[in-house]
């Protein structure tokens, strides 16, 4: 039995006006186990805290009950208080006799009676409290960033700036991501490459940052502060150390028919290739599916022309093990291929393109060197129709239920750029809603309409048909209440944005939860938007949901600051009120593992002595650093092996008993 001290706070008149605090102290003083009970004006004041400390020393208290305001207010304060008097900080229970008693009741006798019951319940609970210690785990001072787009780069740069090592793992041969493919950015219309390529160079040049390009994260184990990752370095068949990026090999390669991914497949590249001139690292990569040497053993032209001797056809896949304190997911997005929209002829006409393809068609580094041409004819289009919300905001099976968020703005940008370069080209945008919340966004859209004369029509295109030398677009104009039949030379589809397909696998290996659309879930939608529910895993950019570049960059920096918060600690202290499993009771049934939102429970074979019998059993083990202490597992566990420290079943039942007594 504990030696319990009870401290009843007046909170000035807040409590004392309705609750007879002296009577409460007197009644609670008679409870079994209570060796000291008193009341005081302000328990949270310095003198109040000293009163508690003195009583702990004078009476040798092993447990403390404070009847005062909500524990949400001063639990931390009083834990420190009793801790400074040498008592374990978790040997404290608070009876909330202010918010849940004195403030809501008027009748003094009634409120006093209730306060006594609440105090009794706290005493019953503290009887069963056990000293708890926050677990300390060391922190590996390096972060892993999965994805080398603008989100990943910004996160990595910010973490590196704070002095910590960062590894970027990028599955493509170069970092830069989608932003490197964009032509201009809204709402300022500055050149995307001009702002992203310096970032790429900075990233590569930063000595704290290691880039694993053309590599994938194969596996991640461990927990916050102590992750272990296996990185698979895919073979480039080119020695990245030796390659100078001169590009001579790419001019000689006879296999020239591979689609150029960087240009969205709008033109071709050679089997040995450098994605684009500003690629980082600026190293050639051999596409094994196209390389004649790798497929047939004959050719070897690139090896012959390479002066640096960098070509290595024997290169093998390599697995690299690295340790990290935190992981940032920046896996980005893809634009869907609207192949299911047969009504828009995407598959049938080369002049129907997605907006990302259109970016490449407009880009100076693109297949047409920035000259706007109809892909089918190479002629300047006379009329371009832009269709919004293709695949977004729908509930049918081919649709994404969410708004892709950036389409309204980039479509305004596209139309504006077209009108700016070629004022004679007509631009018509079919929209459902124009959504432009953002700084200078609506002004930007209005400029497209007012200054550049882009036609905005509310209504959707029903179908696009191949006409005679043009595309026939049939649409409704909802405001004019008429059906339109337009002729266009190009149709640009604002196709929906979806998470990169690699995200699902990464989510699973990190036990980071995802929503039904495969976007990563945040720990709290409002208050913890850059953290995954899994401790130590952070979210950066589009992997969490559609967003534009400034939002991506701010989330990237926010994620970085969260990572820095983790890495700057030598040790992590964890909440000790967490689940633990009694191996003698555990059945090994795995049900708890299934309900754990954090992946904190694993199973291992342990030697167990139960009822005098020694045997090896498969039992649940809670990782104390990962467990957040919700208790979902405790109810799932039929045998009661799983319990929650600080809110143990017997403690809660003791409270129930005391209340119902």
């Amino acid at each position, binding site marked *: 039995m504990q030696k319990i001290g009870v401290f009843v706070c007046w909170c000035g008149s807040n409590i004392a006006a309705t609750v007879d605090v002296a009577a409460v102290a007197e009644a609670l003083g008679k409870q079994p186990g209570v060796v000291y009970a008193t009341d005081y004006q302000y328990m949270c004041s310095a003198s109040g805290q000293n009163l508690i400390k003195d009583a702990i020393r004078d009476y040798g208290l092993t447990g403390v009950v404070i009847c005062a305001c909500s524990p949400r207010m001063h639990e931390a304060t009083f834990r420190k208080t009793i801790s400074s008097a040498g008592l374990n900080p978790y040997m404290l229970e608070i009876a909330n006799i202010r918010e849940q008693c004195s403030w809501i009741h008027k009748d003094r006798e009634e409120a006093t009676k209730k306060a006594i019951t609440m105090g009794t319940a706290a005493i019953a609970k503290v009887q069963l409290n056990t000293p708890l210690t926050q677990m300390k785990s060391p922190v590996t001072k390096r972060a892993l960033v999965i994805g080398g787009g603008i989100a990943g780069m910004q996160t990595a740069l910010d973490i590196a700036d704070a002095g910590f090592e960062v590894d970027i793992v990028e599955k493509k041969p170069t970092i830069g991501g989608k932003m490197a493919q964009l032509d201009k950015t809204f709402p300022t219309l500055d050149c995307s490459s001009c702002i992203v390529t310096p970032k790429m160079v900075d990233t590569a040049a930063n000595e704290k940052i290691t880039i694993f390009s053309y590599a994938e994260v194969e596996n991640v184990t461990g927990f916050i502060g102590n992750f272990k990752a296996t990185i698979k370095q895919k073979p480039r068949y080119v020695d990245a150390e030796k390659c100078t990026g001169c590009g001579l090999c790419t001019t000689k390669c006879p296999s020239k028919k591979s689609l150029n991914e960087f240009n969205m497949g709008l033109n071709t590249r050679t089997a040995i290739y450098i994605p684009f001139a500003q690629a980082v690292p600026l190293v050639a990569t051999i596409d094994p599916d196209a390389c004649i040497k790798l497929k047939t053993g004959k050719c070897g032209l690139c090896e012959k022309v390479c002066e640096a001797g960098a070509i290595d056809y024997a290169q093998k896949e390599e697995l690299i093990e690295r340790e990290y304190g935190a992981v940032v997911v920046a896996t980005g997005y893809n634009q869907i291929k609207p192949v299911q929209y047969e009504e828009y002829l995407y598959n049938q006409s080369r002049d129907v393109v997605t907006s990302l393809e259109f970016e490449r068609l407009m880009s100076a580094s693109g297949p047409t060197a920035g000259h706007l041409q109809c892909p089918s004819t190479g002629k300047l289009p006379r009329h371009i129709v832009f269709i919004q919300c293709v695949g977004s905001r729908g509930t049918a099976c081919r649709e994404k239920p969410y708004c892709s968020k950036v389409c309204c703005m980039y479509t305004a940008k596209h139309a504006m750029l077209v009108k700016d370069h070629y004022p004679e080209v007509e631009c018509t945008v079919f929209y459902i809603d124009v959504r432009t919340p953002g700084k200078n966004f609506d002004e930007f859209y209005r400029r497209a309409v007012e200054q550049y004369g882009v036609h905005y029509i509310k209504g959707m295109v029903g179908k696009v048909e191949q006409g005679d030398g043009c595309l026939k677009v049939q649409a409704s104009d909802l405001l004019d209440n008429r059906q339109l039949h337009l002729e266009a030379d190009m149709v640009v589809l604002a196709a929906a944005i979806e998470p990169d397909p690699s995200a699902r696998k990464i989510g699973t290996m990190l036990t980071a939860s995802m929503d039904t659309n495969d976007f990563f879930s945040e720990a709290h939608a409002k208050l913890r938007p850059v953290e995954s529910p899994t401790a130590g895993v952070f979210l950066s950019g589009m992997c969490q949901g559609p967003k534009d570049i400034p939002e991506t960059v701010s989330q990237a920096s926010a994620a970085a600051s969260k990572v820095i918060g983790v890495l700057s600690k030598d040790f992590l202290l964890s909440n000790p009120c967490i689940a633990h499993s009694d191996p*003698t009771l555990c*059945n090994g*049934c795995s*049900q708890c593992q299934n*309900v754990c939102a954090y992946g904190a429970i694993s199973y291992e074979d342990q030697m167990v002595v139960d009822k005098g019998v020694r045997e090896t059993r498969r039992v649940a083990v809670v990782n104390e650093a990962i467990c957040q202490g919700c208790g979902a597992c405790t109810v799932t566990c039929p045998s*009661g092996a799983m319990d929650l420290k600080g809110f143990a*079943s017997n403690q809660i039942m003791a409270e129930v008993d005391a209340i119902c007594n």
Partner: protein
Amino acid sequence: MRDIREKLLKKIHELFDAGVVDRVVGWKAGEFCYDVTPALFNAGNIDEILYDAFCGPNQSKFLVKGAEGGEKKILALLKPCDTYSYNQLITEHRIDPEKIYALGIPCTGMVDINKIRALGISGILGIEEDGENLKIETLYGTESCKKADVLLERCLVCKGKNHVAGDELLIPDEEAPEVPKCAERMTEVEKLEAMSPEERFNWWRSQLSKCIRCNACRNACPACTCRTCVFDNPSSGVSAKVNTNDFEENMFHIIRAFHVAGRCTDCGECSRVCPQNIPLHLLNRKFIKDIDEFYGEYQAGAEPNVRGPLISYTEQDVEPSIVMTRG
């Protein structure tokens, strides 16, 4: 049934001879025709294995402990309904299928001796299957009854002749005999639901007040595989050896049903073994019915390694208030 047994014995000999297994969980004849005992056999006494209409006990739970310790695999003879429990135990890692050779055997429906006795037939000396009827020799003369009237509760709502797990089938499921479905699974539950709360309360009180807390339901249940049950664990705060009053009678059965909710395959062992014939399966079936209605049709053990309804959720799940608003 006799042909099946002959075929079965032949198959068991084959498996022993091939060195696949070195022991088998089967059934052994008792003192009377009906008191068949589940037992473990080895190469020496295979031919004592019995398989007839009284081999009702679901043996899958035995494998939790029984599969340990052999040199070779243990042979388990699983009736179609037993395979559901078998799957569920695999899902919960309570048995290791690597240590077991599961042979699916056909079933023509198992007889409940209590139902024969409830017909007023006593002094039973011998029972013979006679087409659709049973011929019963007693101390007081010969009696007969329809087999369909005295089948075990689980057989009245047979899950079908298909085995959902196992390494081999004695005969292909398509060729196996079928137990005709004699009742709707939820009829009894619906009857209770249709009563007024007061009637339901009195009905359950009269049933549960019979409970002598012998734990037979729990110990026979293939879902109750806890190494130490909360009701046996003095530190759980709810342990008790007997029900000292109506509250404890209620609590034991509510919590037991809750602990197996979503995991119970509706094998009916609880009711079969209850010495007081309390229809405990009606508690489990209520949970099954609710789960089916609220969260979609679910049959525990239909396949291994799926997440049960209480360890999964959807964002659109019904609210608990549905209990207040329906019917």
